[in-house]
């Protein structure tokens, strides 16, 4: 258990520090965040054509209200936590990579729901927007990470059970 905790913290801090480096921000994080803004606009446009995306910004053309997707809002930190937890846990690399891929998708799907919901919420009421943006959504995203990790642990547990029975 101690080994898991230490490995988890080590990977977490290493990935988080890597994410903070300027070249990584410039060449990976910012383009990815812009992609999220555009993807959100693409999903909204069939229902609401008053929306435009440029760079990391989503904006209503009529009211002018805009949101800029910043660090902490792109799901990267949540993904880092999940990667650290999965890598620190004893399993085959195939299982780890599949879990990371599916986990990344699960986080980003919820994150896009977060971005779109906050975009509309902010256009309606800035006070509610701030509260839900700063406090409630981060907790929900981490809950998503937690559920993905538990599902992964259950999958691993089921994989090892027949082996234990056979050995026992």
């Amino acid at each position, binding site marked *: 258990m101690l080994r898991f905790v230490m490995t988890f913290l080590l990977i977490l801090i290493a990935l988080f520090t890597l994410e903070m480096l300027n070249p990584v921000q410039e060449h990976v994080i910012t383009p990815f965040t812009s992609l999220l803004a555009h993807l959100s606009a693409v999903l909204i446009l069939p229902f609401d054509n008053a929306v435009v995306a440029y760079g990391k910004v989503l904006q209503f053309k009529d009211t002018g209200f805009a949101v800029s997707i910043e660090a902490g809002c792109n799901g990267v930190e949540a993904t*880092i936590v999940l990667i650290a937890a999965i890598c620190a846990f004893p399993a085959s690399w195939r299982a780890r990579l599949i879990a990371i891929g599916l986990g990344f998708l699960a986080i980003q799907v919820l994150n896009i729901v977060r971005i779109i919901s906050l975009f509309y919420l902010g256009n309606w009421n800035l006070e509610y927007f701030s509260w839900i943006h700063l406090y409630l959504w981060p907790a929900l995203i981490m809950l998503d990470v*937690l559920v993905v990790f538990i599902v992964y642990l259950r999958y691993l*547990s089921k994989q090892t059970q027949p082996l234990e029975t056979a050995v026992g």
Partner: protein
Amino acid sequence: MAEQHHMRQFLLFVFTLLIPFFALWTIASAPIALPAIGIAGMLLTNWFPDVVNALYASGSEAILMTEFGESAGQLIPLREAEYRLGFEVNTQILSYSLPFYTALHFATEKKTYLADYLWGVLMLYGLFVFGLVCLCLKELMVNVGAPFFNQPGALVPYAEVIAIAYQFSVLIVPTLAPAALWIWQSKDSKLLQGVFTKTVDS
């Protein structure tokens, strides 16, 4: 099937408990922050006596008062200034770990609740104080700059260390710490029983 039932029950309870616990925390965030502001204030005024005058509470905000004044956007000595320069620090971006942990904890079927919960809150409160110190260091780094870094007789962390500690304390710790604590304390619960220990120990 039983595992799926436990997961569904857990998620249902978490979603049910999140809103009332977050609402309670919003109402009580000022008194919750008060001891943390007091402890962080003591640490900072003793650590940087030439830069930090006080850290005091204003509702759920902490006000970091410096030993400097300001004129036309420039930092000036206090004796030449008309007022003391201070900064607002939002403590809620750290303390929301408490209602999140509370919801996770009480959504899980356990034999005992209170002792683990109090330990959990105590640990999260320690991280809250640490995060508050990091937030104040970041304010001093960004807004005071050179006079903060060039204090005689005070060990000032490198700018990079402050930046990473700040980002880590704000972006990761408030959500990760409750989740990690919950996993640790719930590893014997029906939801996680066997799943975690069996695989880690094997």
